[in-house]
C-alpha cells in the first residue's frame, strides 16, 4: 500500500510561486534549470539519484567546439557538415547548425564555471582529436570530461538552491528558493488537463515510497537514454528510459527509436560494459588483431609485422577515428564473422575481443590526458594498460532516437532564439532535452557531440519554456485540484497492484532474458526474420511479466517494485526499437541490414515517427507520416521530412572521401 500523504507534507510541497518541473539532473536538465532561473522562473528539479551521480558523469573524452586553437582552419560550418555527414543525413540541419555555432561559447562558459580543462603552454584550452573529423576540435578535462562538466553545472544549480525567488516588484519571497531539488524521486506520469496540456507530474519518493503530485506550468524531461533495454551497455543503471516511455504512453511522439549507437571499444563484463573512450584513439591508440588467428603470445610480444591494424588499412584517411557505427561494424566483422578475435589459450577459442593499444605512447602523455579511463581498465580488467594492449569489444552506448521535439527555423538556417517551439514535444507544455530527445545526431552520433548537444539543448530549452509559460492564459496553479488528486490516485492504485504481484516469474531474470535477445539481435546487424523473433520475444516477456512477483512488500526503498515499473516501460521502448528496425528496409548510420546494404534516400530519408497505440489497437507502436500539434497558441503541422537545407545529402564513404567538401 502506498502510504497516504500527511497534511504536513502537503504544506511543505505547496509553493506560493509558479514553478516549472524539470525531471533529470544530468547536463541537459541542469542547463535547462540554470537557464530557467536566469529567466526568473523557479524550478522543481526531480532526479532518480542525487543529480551529481547522473549518467553524464560517465562521459570521458570531451566536448566538441570549433575554436580552431591549433590554426587548422576549423570552423562551426565544418563542424555542422561533419556532424550531419556522420549522422548519415537523418538529422534536421537547423538545430545542428545552432549547436555547432554555439559550441565555442559553450566551452568558454564551462571554462568560466571552473571546469579544469587541459591547457596549452600559453594557458589556452587544449583540444584533442575525436572520431569523424580530422581536426583537433575536442576540449577535455583529462579523461573524465563528463564528470567535470556535470560537477560545474551541479555547482551552479546548487547556488540557485540558495537564492530566494523574487516577486514582480523585485522583493524576495521568504522561504521560496529558485530551485527545489527532489532527489531519489521517480517520475511516474504527467498530469494532463482536459485539453491534454501538461499541468504537472506524479512522482514517487524512492525512500518512503510515498506518491505525490506536483504542479508545474511546464514539464521538461531530461531523463537520458535507453541503454538498460539492452541489459549490459555502457549506460548507468538509471538509464531505463522509464520517464520518456511513460510520457510516450500518454501521447508524446517517439522518433527514430531504431537508431541505437554501438560504441566500438568497451570492456566486456558481467554487470555492465565499461566504456573505453574514443579519446584513447584520438590521442594515438591503435586497434589491431594478430595476423595469425591462433596467436598464443600476449599482445605486447607480437611483433609489429604480425599485427593487422585493420581500421587503418580499411580507412586510410580516418584510420582508427572513423565514426562509431563504422568502427563497430569493422570490429564485429573481424571478431565475429571472421573469427579473428584475440585467441585465448585457456578457453582455446578466439574471444569476441580485439586489441586497443596505447603501449607505444609516452607514459607522461597517457597520465596527463587519459589517466581516468586507463584507471578504469586497470581496476576492472585487472591488467595494466600501460604495459599490455587492452582487450575491448563493441557495446550499446547511446540512443540517437527519443521523444520527438520541434524547432523553429530562422532566416539564416539556425534556430529562432527563444521560440517556444524549440525542444517542445507534441504534448502542450511538455519539453524534452538531452539524450531523451532525438534531435541532433541523426542516424549516428559523432564522439564528443553528446555533451555538447545536452548543454546546447538545455540553453535552448530553458528560454523556450520561459516563452511558453508567458503564453499561458492560465497558470497550472489555477488548474482544478481534482486533476492532481485523480492522477495521484491512479498511480497509487498502479503501485499497489505492482507490490501485490506474487507470481512465479522473477522480473530481474525476465529482464535479463529480454535484454540478451535485444543485445544479440537488435544492435550491430539486423535481419528481418530475426527481428520478427525479437518482437515475439518482447510480447512473450510482456505476457510473462504479468505473472511475476514484485519480490518485496517493503514500504521503504522498495527497489524491486520500482524495477517492475521501469521494466514495463522498458518493454514499450523495446517495441519502438524493434518495430522501427523491422520497418526501415535500408542501411543508414547505426542501423545496418545486410539484406539492404545501401542507404535509400527516396524511401527512407525521413524521421520514424511513432505514436502510442490506443487501447483497441494492441501493443504495436503506430507509425505515422505527419501530425498537427499546438504550441503557445499556434497550430504546427509536422511531417517526417528531414530538413536538409544546409548540407546536401551525398553518399557516405569514409574509406575514400572525407566528411567535408572543402579540406
Amino acid at each position, binding site marked *: 500500500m502506498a502510504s497516504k500523504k500527511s497534511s504536513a507534507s502537503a504544506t511543505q510541497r505547496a509553493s506560493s510561486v509558479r514553478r516549472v518541473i524539470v525531471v533529470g539532473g544530468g547536463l541537459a536538465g541542469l542547463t535547462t534549470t540554470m*537557464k530557467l532561473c536566469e529567466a526568473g522562473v523557479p524550478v522543481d528539479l526531480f532526479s532518480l539519484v542525487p543529480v551529481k551521480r547522473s549518467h553524464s558523469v560517465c562521459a570521458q573524452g570531451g566536448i566538441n567546439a570549433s575554436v580552431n586553437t591549433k590554426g587548422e582552419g576549423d570552423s562551426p560550418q565544418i563542424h555542422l557538415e561533419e556532424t550531419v555527414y556522420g549522422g548519415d543525413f537523418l538529422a534536421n540541419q537547423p538545430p545542428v547548425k545552432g549547436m555547432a555555432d554555439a559550441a565555442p561559447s559553450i566551452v568558454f562558459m564551462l571554462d*568560466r564555471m571552473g571546469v579544469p580543462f587541459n591547457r596549452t603552454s600559453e594557458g589556452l584550452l587544449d583540444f584533442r582529436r575525436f572520431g569523424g573529423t580530422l581536426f583537433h576540435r575536442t576540449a577535455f578535462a583529462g579523461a573524465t570530461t563528463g564528470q567535470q562538466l556535470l560537477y560545474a553545472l551541479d555547482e551552479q544549480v546548487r*547556488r540557485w538552491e540558495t537564492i530566494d525567488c523574487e516577486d514582480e516588484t523585485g522583493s524576495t519571497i521568504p522561504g521560496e528558493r529558485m530551485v527545489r531539488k527532489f532527489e531519489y524521486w521517480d517520475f511516474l506520469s504527467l498530469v494532463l488537463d482536459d485539453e491534454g496540456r501538461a499541468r504537472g507530474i506524479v512522482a514517487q519518493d524512492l*525512500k518512503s515510497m510515498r506518491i505525490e503530485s506536483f504542479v508545474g506550468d511546464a514539464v521538461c524531461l531530461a531523463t537520458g537514454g535507453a541503454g538498460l533495454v539492452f541489459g549490459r551497455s555502457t549506460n548507468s543503471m538509471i538509464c531505463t528510459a522509464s520517464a520518456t516511455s511513460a510520457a510516450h504512453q500518454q501521447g508524446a511522439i517517439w522518433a527514430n527509436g531504431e537508431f541505437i549507437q554501438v560504441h566500438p571499444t568497451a570492456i566486456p563484463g558481467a554487470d555492465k560494459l565499461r566504456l573505453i573512450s574514443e579519446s584513447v584513439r584520438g590521442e594515438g591508440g591503435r586497434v589491431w588483431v594478430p595476423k595469425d588467428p591462433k596467436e598464443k603470445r600476449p599482445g605486447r610480444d607480437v611483433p609489429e609485422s604480425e599485427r593487422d591494424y585493420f581500421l587503418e588499412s580499411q580507412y586510410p584517411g580516418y584510420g582508427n577515428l572513423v565514426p562509431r557505427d563504422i568502427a563497430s561494424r569493422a570490429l564485429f566483422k573481424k571478431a565475429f564473422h571472421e573469427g579473428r578475435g584475440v585467441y585465448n589459450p585457456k578457453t582455446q577459442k578466439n574471444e569476441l575481443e580485439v586489441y586497443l593499444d596505447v603501449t607505444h605512447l609516452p607514459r607522461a602523455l597517457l597520465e596527463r590526458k587519459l589517466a581516468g579511463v586507463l584507471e578504469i581498465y586497470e581496476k*576492472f580488467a585487472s591488467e595494466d594498460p600501460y604495459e599490455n594492449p587492452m582487450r575491448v569489444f563493441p557495446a550499446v552506448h547511446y540512443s540517437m532516437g527519443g521523444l520527438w521535439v520541434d524547432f523553429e527555423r530562422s532566416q539564416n538556417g539556425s534556430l529562432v532564439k527563444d521560440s517556444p517551439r524549440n525542444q517542445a514535444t507534441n504534448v502542450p507544455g511538455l519539453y524534452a532535452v538531452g539524450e531523451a530527445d532525438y534531435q541532433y545526431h541523426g542516424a549516428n552520433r559523432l564522439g564528443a557531440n553528446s555533451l555538447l548537444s545536452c548543454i546546447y539543448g538545455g540553453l535552448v530549452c530553458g528560454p523556450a519554456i520561459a516563452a511558453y509559460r508567458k503564453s499561458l492564459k492560465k497558470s497550472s496553479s489555477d488548474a482544478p485540484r481534482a486533476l492532481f488528486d485523480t492522477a495521484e490516485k491512479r498511480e497509487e492504485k498502479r503501485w499497489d497492484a505492482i507490490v501485490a504481484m506474487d507470481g512465479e516469474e522473477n522480473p530481474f531474470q525476465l529482464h*535479463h532474458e529480454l535484454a540478451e535477445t535485444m543485445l544479440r539481435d537488435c544492435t550491430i546487424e539486423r535481419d528481418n526474420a530475426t527481428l520478427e523473433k525479437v518482437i515475439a520475444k518482447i510480447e512473450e516477456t510482456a505476457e510473462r511479466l504479468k505473472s511475476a512477483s514484485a519480490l518485496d512488500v517493503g514500504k521503504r526503498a522498495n527497489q524491486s517494485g520500482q524495477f517492475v515499473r521501469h521494466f514495463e516501460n522498458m518493454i514499450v521502448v523495446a517495441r519502438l526499437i524493434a518495430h522501427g528496425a523491422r520497418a526501415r528496409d535500408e542501411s543508414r548510420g547505426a542501423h545496418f541490414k545486410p539484406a539492404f546494404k545501401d542507404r535509400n534516400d527516396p524511401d527512407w530519408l525521413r524521421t520514424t515517427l511513432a505514436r502510442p497505440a490506443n487501447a483497441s489497437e494492441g501493443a504495436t507502436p503506430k507509425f505515422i507520416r505527419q501530425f498537427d500539434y499546438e504550441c503557445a497558441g499556434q497550430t504546427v503541422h509536422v511531417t517526417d521530412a528531414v530538413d536538409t537545407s544546409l548540407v546536401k545529402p551525398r553518399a557516405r564513404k569514409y574509406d575514400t572521401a572525407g566528411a567535408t567538401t572543402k579540406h
Partner: protein
Amino acid sequence: MPAKKVRLKVKRQDSPSESARWDEFEVNWVPRMNVISALMEIRKHPVTVDGKKVAPVAWESSCLEEVCGACTMVINGRVRQACSTLVDSLKKSDEGDLPPIRLEPMTKFPLVRDLVVDRARMFDDLKRVHAWIKLDGTHELGPGPRQSPENQEEAYPLSRCMTCGCCLEACPQVNDSSSFIGAAAINQVRLMNLHPSGKMHASERLDALMQDDALTGCGKAMNCVEVCPKEIPLVDSIASVQRQATKRMLFGWLLK
C-alpha cells in the same frame, strides 16, 4: 568440477527503527566478477543459504565504473565502492576458497534500508562552503581566464571527488559530537579557491568554515587519504585550507 561459488553475508535492516539482521547468500562465480554482479545475481533468486525466501537486498548504484560514488558501502570492514571491488581481490591468497564477503552500510549517515544510506549532508555541506564559481551569467562573455597547465594539473585531481563519503566514514573526527566538516568539503574549498575567478570569493568560503568551527579537528589520522578511491591528496587540501584560514584570521582585519 562443481561451479565455483561466492558467499555473501549482508547486514539487513528494513528501516532505522527496526533491528538489524544478517542474511547469507551464495551465487555462482563468474570471471571478472565484482560485488555488484553478485548482488545482481541475488535479486534474480533472492533466497538465503538456509533456503529462506527474502526480499532482494536494497543497495544504491548507478555508473558501475567508480565515477558516480553511489555504490559506496563497507566491504569486509573497509569502506569502498562495490562496483570496483572484484571478488577475487578479496581472497587472502591465490590459493584456497574465497571467504564469505561481508557487506554493511556506511555508519556515518542515516540508514534508509539495508545497504542504502542518505548522504544528503554532504551536498548540504557544499552549500555551506559556497562550493561554486560566482558566475555573472551564462550569456556570452568570451573566453575564460587563462590558466597555466600547472594550475590545471593541481586542480584536476581535486575535482575528481565524487562525494562518495569514504573519507567521512573512515575519519575518527567525523562524529556526532564534533563540528569537523570532513575532508570532502574542505577539498572543494581548496579547489574553488585555486580558480582564477573562484579566488575572488575565497574569504567567503573560509569564513563559512571558520564560523562553524568546521575546519579544526583533523587529527591527521590519514584515514581519508587511505580510503579515497580517487587518491585525492585530502590531507594536503586540509593543510592548505587551514593555512589560508590562519592567514585570514591573522591579517583579515587589515583588509576590512
